[in-house]
């Protein structure tokens, strides 16, 4: 008897190589780990200030202002 004989688990594991999966595609478990890894990285990263460019203009002078440049 080995330890493995006693460890039956209490949920079904996803198959290591799902049927139809491309050979180089990450498994769902790997993809999830990668997403978690990226999420943790993003928690520590950031630019100096937010950025958006909505119109041709670089300046917004309010709802009634002109967008001169």
């Amino acid at each position, binding site marked *: 008897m080995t330890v493995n004989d006693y460890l039956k688990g209490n949920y079904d594991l996803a198959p290591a190589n799902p049927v139809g999966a491309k050979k180089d595609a990450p498994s769902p478990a790997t993809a999830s780990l990668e997403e978690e890894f*990226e999420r943790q990285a993003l928690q520590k990263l950031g630019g100096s200030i937010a*950025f958006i460019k*909505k119109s041709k203009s670089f300046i917004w002078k*309010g709802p009634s202002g002109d967008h001169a*440049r």
Partner: protein
Amino acid sequence: MTTLAERLAARLGEITLAKTAELGVENARKNLPYLKRTIADLETDAPGDNAIVIAAGPSLHRSHPIEALKSADFRGLVIAVDGSLGYCLRNGVVPDYVVTVDPHPYRIVRWFGDPDFATRPADDYFRRQDLDPAHWKDEERRNEELLELVDRHGARIRCVIATCVDPSVTRRCHAAGMELYWWNPLYDDYDAADSVSRRVFELNGVPCMVTGGNCGSAAWIAAHAVLGRRRVALVGFDLGYPPGTPLQRTQYYVEMTQLFGDRLGEYFSEFEHPQTGETWHADPAYHWYRQIFLQLVQEAPCETFNCSQGGTVFGPGITLLDFASFLKTHDGRR
């Protein structure tokens, strides 16, 4: 397939908005007592077409463009970013403008000389950065030197200052005699229901300006969109790390080493500079800034000359030129 660095860069817009918007609005509220002029007051400023933006990238200290600038009869505008102000003043150049935007609570005031340096939290940011090597050589003495230089020349410098900056930056610039010209960063879509941009505009009535995500890009935008320059030269505008940079001297080194471990190499993108053939590295933040800049340069009503002699900022719409040639071509003309 996208790289890890590209995937992280693609998310930085939303991440940066989340991290800076509320702090920016709060600082805008604290800065209200100092609002007298805005960038709208600069739009009819001195006539002329040429400007030089002195950003704070490592090429500034590799190629020393200030020597060429000092020996030229350049009569256009000289615009420094906060991180290059000390470099300019130490080398005998008082810029016409300095631009500042980052809302960090205590790091940015160091670029102007921090009166509260002794009581700041322990921070190796400046020692690790290649932005201005002077800052990691005897930091206390350099801070004292910068305090004196900014106090001596502040009255000749106009500060293009974002409302989101920490009030310590505002107080420092004000105390040094700088005229403050305010702008709100354009944070997000002003037509959105819960727009931060609109909220801060309603708070202070100050025009909002596209940022480019960082101070160097904001300075370039101010040069053409506010000051009306049609030809803008960039120096020290690298958005990357030069070859041979120790990892310890990159932003987020500690955090990223802990997280990435053996995968740290995936964190950087490589760019071969067309003029020098050198390979520069961009972390996700620089990668994001670079993508933004390449987009904006297509829409800008100015010619853009990158005279940095290095970095990652090259592509359609950007003329790579050595700085001496720019000065020679545009010398003497406003």
